[in-house]
C-alpha cells in the first residue's frame, strides 16, 4: 500500500438491482444492472476474502433488494468466514420467519430495515408496492433473535410530518438505533426531487422533534438525523472523501468509489472479475481521479475546510454544475451556490405538500366523486425492476 493511502474500512456490496419495491427516492442509477450479469456466489466470496485482506472491517449488503438474491445465506456465510462484520440493508421483502432465522443462524450481525412512512397508504404511494404490513411483521419477528436492529425512515416532504408516528413504531420495536434519513438527490430521487424536497419550515419542525426524542430516548435508542444537504451551509464529506474509506461493487462487478460515480463522464471503472481488489483500490484510474488535493479548484484548493469535507460530493457537483471537479455547490463558499438557492426558493415558494397547498386539477370536481389523495398525487417517476 502506498504510504499515504489508507485501506478501505467498508465494502458496499450492491448485490442486485432487482427489488420488489419501486421507491421514488431510490439512489440506484437510472440505468439498472440486468439480472443475467450479476456476480456469482463464488465471485462475491472471493471479493469478500480480498476485502478482508485489504483491511476492510465491514460489508454492507445492499442493492436493489439483497433479499432478492437466493444465495444470500451463502453470501453472509462467506463474508463472516472472511472475518467481515455483515450489515444487511433491506426492505424486509421477500422474507418469512424461517428465512430470517437462517440469515441470523449463519452469522448476520446487523439488519437495517427501511420504512417509507408510518402509514400503509404513504408507503404504497412512495414505493408503488403494498409493503408496509410486511415490514411491521418483520419488525415483530426480530424480537425472537439476538441481532442488532436499525430502523431507517427515509424522509421527504410527503412523510416528514409522520415523525411522531415513526418514533412510536420504533419505540414498540426492539431496534436500538433509528436513522431518520432525508432523501439525498441522486438517481431516481433527483428525477423526483420537486416532489420530495421539504420546505424550510418542515425541516425546522423535524429537527426540533428529533432533538427532543434523542434526549428522551438516550440510553434506549440511538437516533441519528440526516438533513437534506441543500439546506446546509457546508457540504457533507461525501463517502468520507473520494476513495478514502469505502468502495462499492455493483451487481455486475464494477468497482466504484460511490453509488452514483458512473454518471461522471470520462471515468474508467475496473471490474472485480478482471482484477483483484487491492490493485483496484490502489491503482484504478477512477479511484485515483479525485484522491488528494491536486484536482481541487478554488475555493476548495486553498480552503481551511478541505480536509473536513473534501470539497463535498463530486456527483452532486456534476449534477448541479456540469463539472465533477467543481466545489460542491451546496457549499456557501461556492460561486455556484445560487443554483442550490434557486432550487430551495422554488421548493419554499410553491410547496407541493398536503391537499390545501396543491392546485386542484379540476376546480369543479366534487370531493366525493374523486379520490382526493389521487387528485393531489404528484406525477411520480417510479423505479422499474431490471430485466
Amino acid at each position, binding site marked *: 500500500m502506498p504510504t499515504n493511502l489508507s*485501506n478501505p*474500512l*467498508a465494502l*458496499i456490496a450492491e448485490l442486485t438491482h432487482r427489488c420488489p419495491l419501486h421507491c421514488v427516492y431510490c*439512489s440506484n442509477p437510472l440505468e439498472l444492472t440486468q439480472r443475467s450479469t450479476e456476480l456469482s456466489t463464488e465471485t462475491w466470496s472471493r471479493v469478500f476474502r480480498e476485502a*478482508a485482506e485489504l*483491511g*476492510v*472491517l*465491514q460489508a*454492507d449488503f*445492499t442493492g436493489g433488494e439483497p433479499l432478492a438474491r437466493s444465495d444470500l445465506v451463502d453470501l453472509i456465510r462467506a463474508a463472516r468466514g472472511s*472475518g467481515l*462484520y455483515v*450489515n444487511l*440493508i433491506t426492505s424486509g421483502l421477500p422474507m418469512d420467519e424461517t428465512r430470517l432465522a437462517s440469515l441470523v443462524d449463519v452469522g448476520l*450481525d*446487523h439488519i*437495517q430495515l427501511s420504512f417509507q412512512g408510518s402509514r400503509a397508504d404513504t408507503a404504497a404511494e412512495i414505493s408503488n408496492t403494498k409493503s408496509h404490513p410486511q415490514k411491521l411483521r418483520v419488525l415483530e419477528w426480530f424480537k425472537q433473535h*439476538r*441481532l*442488532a*436492529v*436499525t430502523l431507517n425512515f427515509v424522509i421527504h416532504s410527503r412523510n416528514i410530518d409522520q415523525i411522531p408516528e415513526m418514533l412510536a413504531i420504533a419505540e414498540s420495536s426492539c431496534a*436500538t*438505533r433509528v436513522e431518520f434519513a432525508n432523501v*439525498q438527490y441522486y438517481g431516481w430521487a433527483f428525477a423526483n426531487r420537486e416532489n420530495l424536497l421539504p420546505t424550510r419550515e418542515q425541516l425546522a419542525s423535524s429537527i426540533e422533534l428529533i432533538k427532543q426524542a434523542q434526549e428522551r430516548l*438516550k*440510553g434506549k*435508542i*440511538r437516533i441519528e438525523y440526516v438533513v437534506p444537504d441543500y439546506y446546509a451551509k457546508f457540504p457533507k464529506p*461525501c*463517502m*468520507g472523501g473520494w476513495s478514502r*474509506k*469505502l468502495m462499492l461493487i455493483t451487481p455486475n462487478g464494477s468497482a466504484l468509489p*460511490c*453509488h452514483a460515480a458512473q454518471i461522471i463522464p470520462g471515468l474508467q471503472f475496473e471490474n472485480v472479475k478482471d482484477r483483484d481488489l487491492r490493485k483496484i483500490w490502489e491503482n484504478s484510474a477512477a479511484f485515483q481521479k479525485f484522491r488528494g488535493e491536486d484536482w481541487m479548484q478554488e475555493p476548495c484548493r486553498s480552503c481551511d475546510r478541505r480536509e473536513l469535507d473534501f470539497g463535498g460530493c463530486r456527483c452532486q457537483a456534476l449534477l448541479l454544475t456540469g463539472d465533477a471537479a467543481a466545489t460542491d455547490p451546496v457549499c456557501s463558499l461556492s460561486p455556484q451556490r445560487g443554483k442550490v438557492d434557486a432550487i430551495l426558493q422554488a421548493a419554499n415558494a410553491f410547496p407541493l405538500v398536503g391537499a390545501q397547498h396543491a392546485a386542484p386539477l379540476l376546480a369543479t370536481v366534487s370531493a366525493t366523486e374523486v379520490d382526493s389523495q389521487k387528485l393531489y398525487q404528484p406525477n411520480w417517476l417510479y423505479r422499474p425492476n431490471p430485466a
Partner: protein
Amino acid sequence: MQQSTRTQNIPLRGRPSVSLDPNSTPRLAAGCRLGENNNQRVLLMPERALRLNGPSLEIVQRCDGQHTIQQIVADLQKLYSKAEPEKVAQDILGYLKLLHDQRALDFESSAPL
C-alpha cells in the same frame, strides 16, 4: 445508500462523573463484537467501528456479562497501579456510559437466579 463505517478513538479522560450500579454486569449489545485487522483491535457495531487500545481494550474485553463493574474497576486499578484509583474508576464509568448511550453495551443485573 451512503452509510460509512467510521472509526474513532475515544479518549478516556475528561468526562463528567457518572454513577452506575457497581454490581451490574456490562455486556456487549446484540450485533456488537470484538474484531481485529492489521493488528488493530476494534469494537464492531452497526456501520461503525471503534479502535481499542490499552485501557479501552481492557475494559471492553471484560464486558462479557460475567464481570461486574466493580470487578472491572478493580482489575484496571491493579493493571494501571501508577494512576490515581479514583480517576481510573471515573474514567471507566464514563467510558461504559458512553458505550451504553451508543447502544453498544447493556447493563445486566447480577442478581442471583
